[in-house]
């Protein structure tokens, strides 16, 4: 039986134009055998959730370097829930101060990655988290 590939949406919420990180991570996750959809720049939370639902992704990774994460990350989660996508694994990265990371952790973003993170570490974290989910679903 061939295993379904992990489907990841890499998204750029807000007006931030910095996409080097998002595109580097997207390419690396593809190299790790995941199906990766990249939204392109300047997406609203609604548009991100819409693409996530249409593409039936397992993971949504947000990249933001503009400081607007506290306004936008929670909204992406709300929009995902509205579309029955509350189950997706949420993550992200960028320039996010530690205090904000801690606050976002309570809102479903259990792991956020800062500057200097190897793409290897991100791929590994997603793989492990998805394997655990699969195991839990199997146990139910």
């Amino acid at each position, binding site marked *: 039986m061939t295993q379904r590939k992990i489907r990841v949406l890499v998204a750029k919420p*807000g*007006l*931030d*134009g*910095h*996409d*080097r990180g998002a*595109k*580097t991570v*997207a*390419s*690396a996750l593809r190299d790790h055998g995941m199906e990766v959809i*990249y939204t*392109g*720049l*300047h997406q*609203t939370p609604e548009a991100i959730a819409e693409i996530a639902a249409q593409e039936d992704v397992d993971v949504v990774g947000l990249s933001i370097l*503009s*400081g*607007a*994460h*506290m*306004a*936008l990350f929670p909204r992406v989660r709300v929009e995902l829930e509205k579309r029955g996508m509350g189950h997706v694994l949420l993550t992200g990265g960028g*320039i996010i*101060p*530690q205090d904000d990371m801690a606050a976002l952790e309570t809102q479903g973003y259990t792991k956020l990655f*800062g*500057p*200097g993170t*190897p*793409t*290897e570490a991100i791929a590994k974290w997603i793989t492990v988290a998805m394997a655990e989910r699969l195991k839990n679903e199997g146990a139910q």
Partner: protein
Amino acid sequence: MTVDRSRTEVRAVDAHALWQAEFDQAKKRGVEFTSLSGAPLQPLYGPADVPLGYESELGYPGSFPYTRGVHPTMYRSRLWTMRQFAGFGSAKQTNERFKFLLAHGQTGLSTAFDFPTLMGYDSDHAHSLGEVGQVGVAISSLADMEVLMGGIPMAEVSTSMTINGPAPILLAFYIACGERQGVDPKLLRGTVQNDILKEYQAQHAWLVPAEPALRMITDVMGYCARRVPQWNTISISGYHIREAGSTAAQELAFTLANGMEYVRRGKAAGLDVDEFAPRLSFFFDSHLDFFEEIAKFRAARRIWARKLRDTFGAKDPRSWMVRFHTQTAGVSLTAQQPENNIVRTAFEALAAVLGGTQSLHTNSMDETLSLPTEKAVKIALRTQQIIAEETEVAHVIDPLGGSYYVEALTNRLEAEAERYFAEIERRGGVVPATEQGYVQKEIHRSAIAYQAAVERGSKRVVGVNCYTEDEQGPTIELHKIDPAVEREQHERLSALRKRRDASKARRALDEIHDACKSRDNLLERFVAAAHADCTLGEIADVLRAEFGHYREPKIL
């Protein structure tokens, strides 16, 4: 005589072969000996690597082809302008930071705008939620600009504004603001970035598609040539291309290719090349590969001089000169052990100075974590002052000129840039090459190659993949943006819309609409609209409705 010389040559060849043999046998460190851009490097450079025609390749400072510098005296007459990029929160807060920097010896202003401003949205637009004042100052109207420049003598200070898509609108606010301070536009000095091509390629803050955007740029060139003659109408920028991941050669090539496109557009709009080319300026990154960066600055001067004189027929030597601003490489900074960034920045700043920059921004140590604190900014500024005052490097012009290594690098970068120019030409020019995503793909390819090199350890980053430490959160104090700024901006805008003469504002916007359809100069209309208290978003909405939105090509 002849015999003696040939003997010397034989001995020199023997000496070289001897060294080569010793070198080949010796044990080497287990790293890749490549430049930061991944280019292979010889262990030694000598006369054979640089078949140098001194007059044609180097010449003298202040004369063609300007490899050694654009001024005959360089820093013996005047040091570079120390210009720290600043902007955050409200116009009032940034005004205070400007005054702080001027009080500590900074000699020019440089404005960072927030993302809503960069994208042409007012602070109270739905898309602006959470972004107001975050990465720069929020400027939605002439009233905001008046607060930003309050108490700063606009006839005396030179101001750089880093904005592109809506650049003509912000420039209109600045001109109108000067007029309200009683300053003749002829006295205004400064730069507006206004380089839309690199926005599509790398920085990604745009307003409308390429053709109307380029038309607005030629409108700015035409208007300023007549009315604001000391203003630099475009800062053709490699910085963002490099920060997005390009190599040094790509930064050089794409920046100059964009520059040549602006020259073609200006000429096609009926302007004389010598009327606008002297007001074009450049903006480069200074990264960690010290010699490669110095060579890049030197190559930029030589290439541009040759293109402008020989390809575009410019007669005025001022049209041939690359005058440039430099910023140290933001991407070279690490969130880990952030104080080390002071050292990285110092090396990069020194490369910019040895490369002959006209102005310089040094990054602050905390910029991978947040906008900089006053303390971090002051250390960054002091870094420049130490180079200028204590190291004595500014006394000698182009001190690395004649170094076999630096000259070989300069030649290599020029040749690599020429290969890119040919490829761009083959794709129909820089606009089609960008619309097809070619430039973006090249930059992306370099970005992932670098990331892979760091992850396999062949490129070393202290604190990231070597000499790492366990760190519990940031060890330095961070700058925070007050969320009240967004609310206050909403209040200011709603008060402005109530207070202004609504019919006058409406008429000014209608005139912009009409000018979009005709060939009338748009900047002239923007200045009138600024005086009528039209907002940035209102003006940009007219342009978006008339010209449409830009859609980025899919490259991934």
